[in-house]
């Protein structure tokens, strides 16, 4: 009996139990994929009337008037971008510095509890941040931080105008608190992953530990650290409840950081159940679609960057 040297493609699932198992596994995965695709499709379908009615000018029109059914997203986009920018500037500085400390300087007895506390900060529910922001941070902004900033920098338009307590700056600070753990945790992991030899090489050249950490290790990890910041930015863009509670909820564009504003997410949160006309609802869903697309792009960018330095590890 001779058997020709033909290739055999081997079926890995042959028994009935395995076929059933494979079918169930495939089924679950397909359902998962359908859910995500369905999410996108539903957002597009829901915003279709608004897309038809307002066209692309929806993005740069600044009126938000439910009475005349005239909707433009610019004030919310402005508010979202501004709060997220404030948040990422603050959080990137604090978060990266904290990560440098935890990765290169902290003795174990100090590093572990600090890491633990900072990571727990990420677990605090959004609504609790909002509550604290509304009753503690906002009054403190109105009575102390705001006037102090205005006293020093009042001549800059950014810090002019009346101080309500709630507003862009307060929203940004709350967001910064919420995303510091993201920046810190991922940056620390990326920094720790930088090979020892690099540090030792730099130390051997006579650099101090601090110079090594800042001029050698941090630049070597820049892609991953930047990715951590972008990922954090993605979270800030979509954060809803905490911002809704401290931003003042007014669809206006103002030069002052103390002025009340609105974000894409918080306008949906506040007005969706009260939207009376279908075009109003549709405009709100289109805001959700914009939010979805922007955070998807930001997230894809961040993951791509973090992956490129950490291999295919999950973020």
């Amino acid at each position, binding site marked *: 009996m001779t058997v020709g040297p033909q*290739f*055999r493609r*081997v079926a890995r699932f042959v028994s009935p139990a395995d076929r059933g198992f494979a079918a169930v596994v495939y089924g679950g995965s397909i359902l998962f994929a359908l859910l995500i695709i369905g999410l996108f499709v539903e957002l597009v379908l829901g915003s279709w009337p608004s897309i038809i009615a307002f066209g692309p000018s929806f993005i740069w029109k600044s009126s938000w008037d439910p009475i005349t059914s005239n909707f433009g997203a610019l004030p919310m986009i402005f508010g979202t971008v501004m709060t997220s920018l404030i948040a990422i500037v603050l959080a990137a500085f604090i978060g990266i510095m904290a990560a440098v400390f935890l990765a290169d300087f902290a003795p174990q007895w100090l590093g572990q509890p600090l890491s633990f506390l900072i990571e727990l900060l990420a677990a605090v529910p959004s609504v609790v941040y909002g509550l604290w922001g509304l009753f503690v941070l906002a009054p403190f902004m109105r009575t102390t931080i705001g006037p102090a900033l205005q006293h020093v920098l009042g001549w800059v338009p950014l810090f002019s105008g009346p101080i309500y307590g709630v507003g862009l700056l307060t929203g940004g600070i709350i967001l910064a608190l919420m995303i510091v753990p993201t920046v810190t945790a991922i940056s620390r992991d990326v920094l720790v992953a930088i090979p020892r030899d690099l540090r030792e090489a730099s130390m051997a050249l006579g650099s101090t530990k601090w110079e090594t950490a800042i001029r050698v290790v941090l630049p070597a990890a820049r892609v991953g650290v930047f990715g951590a910041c972008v990922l954090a930015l993605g979270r800030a863009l979509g954060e809803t409840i905490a911002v809704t509670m401290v931003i003042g909820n007014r669809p206006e564009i103002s030069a002052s950081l103390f002025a009340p504003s609105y974000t894409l997410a918080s306008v949906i949160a506040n007005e969706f159940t009260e939207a009376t006309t279908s075009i109003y609802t549709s405009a709100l869903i289109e805001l959700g679609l914009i939010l979805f697309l922007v955070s998807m792009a930001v997230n894809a960018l961040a993951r791509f960057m973090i992956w490129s330095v950490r291999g295919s590890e999950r973020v």
Partner: protein
Amino acid sequence: MTAVAGGELLATQDLGAYYGTRQAIAEVTIAFRRKAVTALIGPSGCGKTTLLRCFNRIHEISFDARVEGSVFLDGHDIYANDVDPMAIRRRIGMVFQRPNPFPTLSIFDNTIACAPKGLNYQGKMEAAERALRSAALWDEVKDKLRTSPLRLSGGQQQRLCIARAVAAHPEVLLMDEPTASLDPIATAVIEELMASLCKEFTIVAVTHNMQQAARVSSVTAFMLADETGVGRLIEADATSKLFTKPSDRRTEDYISGRFG
């Protein structure tokens, strides 16, 4: 070259194996003596483990792995279309390089993980005792059958894996460097065990330790990778003959240490 002898329990014909487009072994034709230990020797990367993994169709669970040619168990091609690999694996047991007891099952449950179905508790207990006794482990674990196998020593874990394979009543036992991760004392115990197990099973054992092959096997097969990295069977013969008067120059070079 050894021809396929009639009536052998396990034999191959022109067996080749691939990982994707890379060929690992080619044109292996060999028959294994019943109820004896056959040792597969050869330098690292010569494809002996791959060959072993073709015998119980475990090669194919690797991604993109393929097989050509035939493996005959009792005269039937185990790669024929209508053959259920799971049935083959029940008839051909395997022991791995590193002990791999199932971490979440107790020693008892490990032993009977694939014992014949439909046994009551008494039957299971008897099956477990029989298997553990034939793996020379019973006396050491009989008082802790319900505990985790991870607390056993490496040698004990490996014997548990042997008991687990034996409990499924296979006809052939494949052993892939079963003592590679063990200390000399544990190794000696396993080698003794192989000598007693071969009264009941046809054993094929991969080893890269020539002394071990000389100690435990009655037949030895020598494999070597050719210039393109494809593993080939050089010769197979009675162990005593292969180690004293090999018929191939390359075998002689290897056993006298000229391959480094």
